[in-house]
């Protein structure tokens, strides 16, 4: 499958409503520039992000996934982000082993006041996903199975 | 098990028994917060005209992209302006169904299964016992009987739900309450401030109402727990197992006795039922009904 020149990646961003979501909001109101590639899904805590969310996003064709929560120690529910960290870590490592490119699964700590960091993160993640190209992971096989060059 | 009452549906789409006909929802009635009745007509006018069914039969309804689920046709074959079915919001398909509005298209296959044995009921006193949404199949038969009133003797109805808010078909209950030829009793498990009717579970109220078994047939439909407690009450009142009819609910997918899941012993509820006499149920190999 040939990549179109004007292709823009689509990212799913699971943002904690207590921090990163507010950070994104602030980035918007303070006119910080960041790529419009991210579709934001508000979650009550990064600990709410089930690895299935990440998989479902990839299955639906999102080119990358960002999970963003409060800095360690700042969780509104005390420990949600610590738990998220373990889950994200094993999910990311495991998917990389299966052949998902590391750029596709990203995580960050962004507080409500870090509008600049949010914009930087989205810019970085978008750039990374652009490098690895469109998500063809779950696309139907074209012809014989040997032609897998655009996957991963 | 008798299979005399079974005949295949005549209304196949393109000779493929699994293809649904397209139907349009024309009206939606909110029976209770979780139960709605849908009025529909086939998109194909010719089919709409020719379609026929009998009380007790069911259809497989498609919400395209979500799936199929079986519901009985809750309107009467004697009132053919449109067809009706009633569904409680309990799962994937019914959740999607409850999101649909008037004008939405659904799929319909059927009618499937056997039906209430009208010939057997003719000239008899009929005792309807219903609980919750279980009134839906009974309702088809009740209107059928009312529209052929002279062929049947006395009609009694004991209907109940958990609370006054859970009563379905209140408009029908009102109409039947006004009909002098019907003895209609409505009850709730738990009343509220405005409830002035009876309070108590259906089997208990049925025992109090104590319909006579003489030349009578009881037709029971409701949640399994109600059915299980109602049969013994009827037996106590003197009804024989042949005088008790019910319609069973099972998980069905194909609706035509192929996919296997509604199998009990050598019958498939979708194909050989859903209407059974208690006599038949007692002869089932399994008590898994």
């Amino acid at each position, binding site marked *: 499958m040939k990549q179109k020149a004007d292709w823009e990646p689509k990212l799913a961003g699971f943002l904690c409503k207590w921090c990163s979501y507010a950070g994104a909001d602030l980035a918007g109101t303070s006119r910080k520039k960041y790529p419009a590639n991210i579709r934001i899904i508000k979650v009550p805590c990064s600990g709410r992000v089930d690895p299935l969310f990440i998989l479902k996003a990839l299955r639906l064709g999102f080119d990358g996934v960002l999970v963003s929560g409060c800095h360690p120690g700042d969780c509104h529910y005390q420990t949600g982000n610590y738990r998220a960290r373990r889950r994200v870590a094993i999910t990311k490592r495991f998917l990389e082993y299966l052949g998902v490119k590391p750029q596709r699964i990203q995580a960050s700590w962004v507080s409500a006041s870090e509008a600049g960091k949010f914009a930087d993160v989205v810019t970085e993640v978008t750039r990374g996903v652009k490098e690895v190209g469109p998500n063809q992971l779950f696309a139907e096989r074209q012809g014989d199975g040997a032609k897998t060059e655009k996957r991963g | 098990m008798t299979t005399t009452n*079974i005949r*295949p549906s005549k209304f196949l*789409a*393109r*000779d*493929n*028994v*699994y*293809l*649904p006909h*397209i139907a349009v929802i024309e009206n939606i009635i909110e029976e209770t917060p979780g139960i709605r009745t849908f009025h529909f007509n086939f*998109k194909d006018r010719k089919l709409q005209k020719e379609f026929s069914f009998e009380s007790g039969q069911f259809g497989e309804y*498609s*919400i*395209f*992209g*979500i*799936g*199929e689920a079986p519901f009985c046709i809750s309107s009467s074959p004697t009132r053919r302006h449109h067809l009706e079915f009633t569904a409680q919001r*309990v*799962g994937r398909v019914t959740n999607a169904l409850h999101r649909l509005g008037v004008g939405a*298209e659904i*799929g319909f296959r059927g009618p499937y299964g056997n039906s209430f044995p009208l010939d057997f009921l003719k000239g008899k006193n009929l005792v309807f016992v219903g609980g919750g949404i279980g009134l839906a199949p009974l309702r088809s038969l009740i209107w059928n009987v009312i529209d052929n009133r002279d062929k049947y003797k006395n009609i009694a109805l004991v209907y109940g739900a958990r609370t006054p808010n859970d009563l379905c078909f209140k408009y029908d209950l009102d109409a039947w309450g006004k009909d002098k030829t019907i003895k209609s009793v409505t009850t709730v498990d738990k009343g509220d401030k405005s409830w002035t009717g009876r309070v108590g579970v259906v089997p208990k109220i049925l025992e109090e109402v104590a319909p006579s078994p003489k030349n009578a047939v009881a037709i029971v439909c409701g*949640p*399994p727990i109600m059915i299980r407690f109602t049969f013994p009450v009827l037996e106590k009142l003197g009804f024989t197992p042949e005088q008790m009819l019910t319609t069973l*609910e*099972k*998980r069905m*997918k*194909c609706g*035509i*006795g*192929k*996919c*296997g*899941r509604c*199998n*009990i*012993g*050598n*019958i498939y509820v979708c*194909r050989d039922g859903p209407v059974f006499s208690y006599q038949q149920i007692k002869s089932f*190999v*399994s*008590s*898994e*009904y």
Partner: protein
Amino acid sequence: MANKKISKKDIGKLLNQWGQQFAVFTPSREDGVAKMARWEGKDTGFLGWYWNTVVPPKANFLPPMEEMFRFQKDKEGYRIELPPDGGRQLIFGIRPCDARAMKIIDANFKELYQDPYYLNKRKSALLVGLGCTNPGESCFCTSMGVSPAESSDVDLMLTDIGDELLIEPVSAAGKELITKSRGLKAANKTDEAKAKEVKKASYNKVSRKLNTEGIADRLLASFDDQDFWEKVAAKCISCGICTLLCPTCYCFDINDELTRQQGTRFRSWDSCGFPVYTKMPMENPRAEKWKRVRQKVCHKYEFYPMSLDVIACTGCGRCIRLCPVNWDITQVLNSVPAKTKVGK
């Protein structure tokens, strides 16, 4: 019609010939898993290793997942589109047990309503049987009225007589096929005698036995014997191996899928061993494992014969061989007590 024969080294040529008219399937072993796969014109090695396929040939007629139709919505409303008809299949090397199994499930798909997906494939297909000369340890076909190297349920029956295969036409379609096939030699008396020997020897090799005498009655009598069924079910893990891979199990599920472009309705294999199989929103008549195990056993050996006059088992032995906990149907059925009905 007289019998024919063909040299084993010419089988490839024969399959290529048939391949012009049919989609030919032969046993194939991919990563150690034998199944019927599309003949690709080369490998006839299966004649050497083939015991039986892990995935039964029912998969050619009732695929593990199959499109029923697709639908699209436009301003006129929903439009339903049927998938294109597949070509005619020729299944080469089907074992007599599996051929019988096809006949058994035909009954289900024909009864009352015709199942178009299954029957269209089935009616247009030819089955070329290959006698089993080396029945496995888990096979008990002879107890189920199947002979490992003889079959009346195929179109052609092949028997290994050394360097050659004897070809016996069984059905009219089979006769027609060999009339039209090139490169077949006429079989002589010696070949036929040899084949007879092979068939007899194969029959006698099947050592596992299942006592089917009065089996339906015994099951009926023990139906409510919960202790017995709980004991039988104790080690079952409720997986779907013995049902999904059973050549006579036909249960299926129906599900819709929606993508942005269109929707599709699929049907796929399902198993009465799964708790969700019968689960309704409010209750589940077979939530307990022993009830599901009982259903599986009784459906095959009691209910199916009650309605369709045939036991839904051909003794292929897959369920025994593949079971992760060695749950053995022959042991279970041989232990069903013959006592009077309890309770009810």
